[in-house]
């Protein structure tokens, strides 16, 4: 197995994190936004596991599991809110949700 330097892992997770952030900004479907948020969280998970390996402790891996668990709860709530908001609409597009404005 080729050994990558730690910086390579950091760069990869930074790219994943940025992709997730861009996804939240540009995608108009609530489901795609949820997936993009998952991507951001998983980028952080990758970083935790990589650093955990580098430091030789278990803390990073424990944190990764914690984040996965919490992310599952978050998605459950996110999907519930999505259903609540878009059930009566013909299509799920966040641009049409504009009742509250300046």
């Amino acid at each position: 197995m080729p050994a990558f330097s730690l910086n390579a892992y950091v760069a990869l997770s930074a790219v994943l994190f940025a992709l997730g952030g861009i996804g939240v900004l540009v995608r108009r479907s609530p489901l795609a936004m949820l997936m993009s948020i998952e991507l951001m969280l998983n980028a952080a998970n990758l970083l935790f596991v990589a650093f955990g390996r580098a430091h030789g402790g278990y803390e990073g891996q424990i944190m990764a599991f914690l984040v996965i668990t919490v992310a599952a709860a978050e998605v459950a709530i996110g999907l519930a809110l999505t259903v609540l908001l878009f059930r009566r609409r013909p299509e799920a597009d966040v641009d049409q949700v504009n009742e509250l404005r300046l």
Partner: protein
Amino acid sequence: MPVDLNFTIAAPLLALAAGALLILLLDLLFKYETIQGPMYVAAIGAVLVAGWYLVPLWQGAADPSGFAGMLVMDRFAAVYGGVLLIAALLAILLSIGRAREDQSGYLALLLWAAMGMVLLGGAGNLMVIFLGIELLSLALYVMIAFAPRRMAAREAAFKYFILGSVAAAFLIFGFALIYGATGTMSIAGIAEAARSFTSEGAWAVGLYYKVGVGLAIVGLAFKMALVPFHIWAPDVYQGAPTPVTAYMSIGTKAAAFAAMARLLVAAVPEAYQPSFLLPLSILAFASMMLGASAGIWQSDLKRLMAYSGIANAGYLIMAIPGLGLDGLSAAAYYLGAYGFATMGIFAVVRILEADGVDGSQIANLKGLFYRQPWVGVCLALLFFGLAGIPPAGGFVGKFLLAIAAVRGQAWIVLAGLILSTGISAYVYLKVIGTAFTRTKEAPQPEEGAEPHAPTRTAAQVVLVIAAVGTLVMGVLPGPVSELVRVALAGM
């Protein structure tokens, strides 16, 4: 390795969690009509029991740290926990008389959110900060949507959810980088590592560390609604049911500030405070100015309170530059004063809502003083508190914060305080003026809304508590601030 259980310090948290479970159980075992009152009693009881367990921690527990350093319920945590529990108590009182729906779920979520907030004050590890933030956020996302047939509430919940999740992602990405740079997740360990960077002259290498702390601050600043992470605040404040708005305006702010203070005290070595905290001061300045001036154009009281909350988040940051005892005790005092004022103003909104009137329209406040004189007087007192005019508590709070900022030589935030206080005084006095304008027509109730007496009584109780609290903090600042100072001196 022995399991390090310390139930003395975890007792307030356990009391809140147990209260939430008890309420869910009551709902399961008894008929809905008979159990509604007891559920509220149980919720208030849980908060009071948590407060009871907090008292010995306030006096200083023999061993404030437990669970292998994960939880540090020292006096700092006790002071902020006290503020948060008062907010939770008043929010429960304000919730009385909500529309007939799932009361048990709502109250349980409220208690769990309170648990997350108190947990943030006592976090001894980055994992616990993350857990606390998520516990309070996930509960609040659901509570905001808790309004039947109101699309605005659902929209507010969805917006808050998306932006809040992104903020949480920033927070843990920052934590991951901090972990990578220091090799530990414990806040005490991070403090040690941050000091060793400087002594070896390796500070310049710590790019991961600097970016990590920056991202973590972004995540927490979002929860506090600091500019430019404030976009969600006006929409969510307006859309959420009034009791939830009142609860989150003070609760999330206090909790996120406590976590930020804990993280920054550990993560920023004294020698690097000026350069590290300059960006934060600029954010604080921007928050104060935007929060104060955007209020001028608001016709909705809840939105106005959101902008006021943004400005107040900026004021709280004034405590950060010195990062000393002065600042943190001033911030705790200010949070108390701000909390009472906010809770009271939302209680006035609730009193109007009890008559079926849309209380968040500032136009509906017109002539309030002539219809309900003492409600009008209390409203004026509470807005004086927000503006920082004596004899209300906000004046003393701002004064203490200004002293802390001078000691910390934070001139930017001090200038912001003076400028924005002037602007916001105009905004608040305009609202008071509306309430004291004579008018013949009473505001029209919304269609299908009926007066609800218990709601009005409960909201009036909250209003009285808030007004008395504001007045005591303004007239007798010595004892209260001394209490906070003494409590924090042992940190």
